[in-house]
């Protein structure tokens, strides 16, 4: 299963290079490399003695092996397995006597451990070593402890170690991406911005991919939410009997296709990295949210915030979107609460109340001049509502940014200081 085994079959592309590499050992060890030409080079190397005089104290601190990693890659005593790490180590030796590393390696670090350790030192070096090193295949020296190096389970990925995306790490990633611009964020630049050695471009690239798909999902939800909110408009205004235009829609509320109404008003916000949740039929708002808006609830599901399905009632309402679920005083007044504009590159045109489900051109009514192409800067109310609703209904989901949570005590103390004693509040 090991890629390693495939490496076995690779031959040294250039023996000379190998020789050179070996020769660099010369000053250090007492190996005779002259015979390297014809046989398996590494077999003739006695790694144990190579850096015998290395001062162990020179060992780089960041070479520390995570015992888990070691355990994970059980060491096979099979010394015939090509030695990946030695390949790298050899390559490294080529440049500078990374003797400490060698010693570390020889003390039995696993491949992936080496990966991590090397990458901590700077992935570039590692990657470059891997790339340039034709020395991909090194037979494991037939020493007991060397056997440990042959970590059979090592995956010989070019610098790809499993990255643990901690909240902090992710936060920095997000920062970097935001700084560059989601679409323009290039892994290499992100890497620079993050300034973390442990990460390879590959890690970043795959993480970025996930992040982007997550954002797309958000966008999709928002689009849906916009359409949905249009319907809400109709719904709400119909209830409030505001404007003659709305009247025709009063009736349709009854005709609200129950199906759409009840279908998971909030499509699960796909938190990337986690499988998309199944769309359960009903999302119950947490208790502290008001139940359904009061508008004529012909449906039996009175709690239902209006569905976010693409608006069926488009084109007619002139009222800017403003209603959201859970708003207690919904129907009476169309709150001119405009949160922000939808994520459409619409030039500030005040009159376009075009609500087309296909195009997220929500009305602007001139209130806000922000027309941002993405929802980055001024998200629409609907999308926010969608996201918030989702967060509320699925509190078990992991935090999107994974910021470090404040201590409960300090929060409570602070709240009390400001006069809030009951949490969650019993009164709205």
């Amino acid at each position, binding site marked *: 299963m090991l890629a390693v085994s495939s490496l076995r079959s690779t031959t040294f592309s250039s023996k000379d290079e190998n020789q050179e590499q070996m020769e660099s050992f010369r000053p250090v060890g007492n190996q005779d490399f002259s015979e390297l030409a014809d046989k398996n080079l590494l077999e003739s190397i006695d790694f144990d003695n190579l850096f015998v005089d290395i001062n162990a104290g020179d060992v780089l601190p960041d070479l520390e092996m995570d015992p888990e990693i070691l355990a994970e890659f059980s060491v096979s005593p099979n010394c015939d397995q090509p030695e990946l790490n030695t390949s790298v180590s050899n390559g490294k030796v080529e440049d500078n006597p990374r003797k400490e590393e060698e010693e570390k390696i020889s003390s039995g670090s696993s491949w992936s451990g080496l990966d991590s350790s090397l990458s901590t030192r700077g992935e570039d070096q590692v990657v470059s070593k891997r790339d340039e090193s034709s020395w991909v295949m090194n037979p494991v020296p037939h020493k007991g402890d060397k056997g440990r190096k042959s970590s059979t389970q090592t995956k010989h990925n070019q610098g790809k170690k499993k990255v643990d995306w901690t909240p902090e790490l992710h936060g920095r990633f997000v920062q970097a991406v935001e700084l560059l611009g989601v679409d323009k964020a290039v892994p290499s630049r992100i890497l620079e911005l993050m300034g973390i050695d442990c990460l390879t471009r590959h890690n970043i690239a795959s993480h970025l991919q996930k992040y982007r798909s997550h954002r797309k999902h958000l966008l999709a939800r928002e689009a849906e939410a916009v359409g949905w909110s249009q319907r809400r408009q109709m719904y709400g205004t119909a209830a409030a009997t505001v404007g003659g235009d709305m009247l025709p829609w009063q009736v349709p509320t009854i005709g609200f296709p129950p199906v759409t109404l009840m279908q998971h008003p909030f499509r699960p916000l796909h938190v990337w990295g986690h499988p998309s949740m199944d769309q359960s039929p009903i999302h119950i708002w947490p208790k502290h949210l008001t139940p359904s808006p009061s508008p004529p609830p012909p449906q039996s599901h009175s709690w239902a915030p209006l569905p976010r399905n693409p608006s069926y009632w488009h084109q007619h309402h002139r009222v800017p979107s403003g209603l959201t679920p859970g708003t207690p005083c919904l129907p009476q007044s169309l709150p001119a609460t405009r949160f922000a504009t939808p994520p459409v590159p619409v030039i500030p045109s005040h009159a376009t109340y075009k609500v087309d489900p296909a195009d997220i051109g929500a009305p602007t009514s001139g209130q806000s001049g922000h027309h941002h192409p993405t929802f980055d800067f001024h998200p629409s109310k609907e999308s926010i509502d969608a996201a918030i609703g989702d967060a509320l209904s699925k509190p078990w989901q992991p935090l999107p940014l994974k910021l470090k949570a404040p201590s409960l005590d300090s929060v409570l103390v602070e*709240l009390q200081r400001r006069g809030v004693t009951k949490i969650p509040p019993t009164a709205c």
Partner: protein
Amino acid sequence: MADSSASYIHMVHRLIEECIVFNMSKEECMEALAKHANIKPVVTSTVWKELEKENKQFFDAYRARREQKADSEMETRECLQKIISDSSKLGIKE
């Protein structure tokens, strides 16, 4: 009960994070949470502040990012307005 408080705070925390994903300011967040989730602005504000304390670096960068965007957005808007006014001027002339 401490449990429900904890979970409530956690939820507010989560919601705030969502708002941050949307690049909202603290005020916007307070407003949004109050509207959409019936969370008192004071609560939102408190949790936000606490989060800020715990994640100072992140919030600093966040703030800088927002300012940056605000500036560029301002420029864009001004530019657009100029274009519009220019074009409207042309219309008038004709």
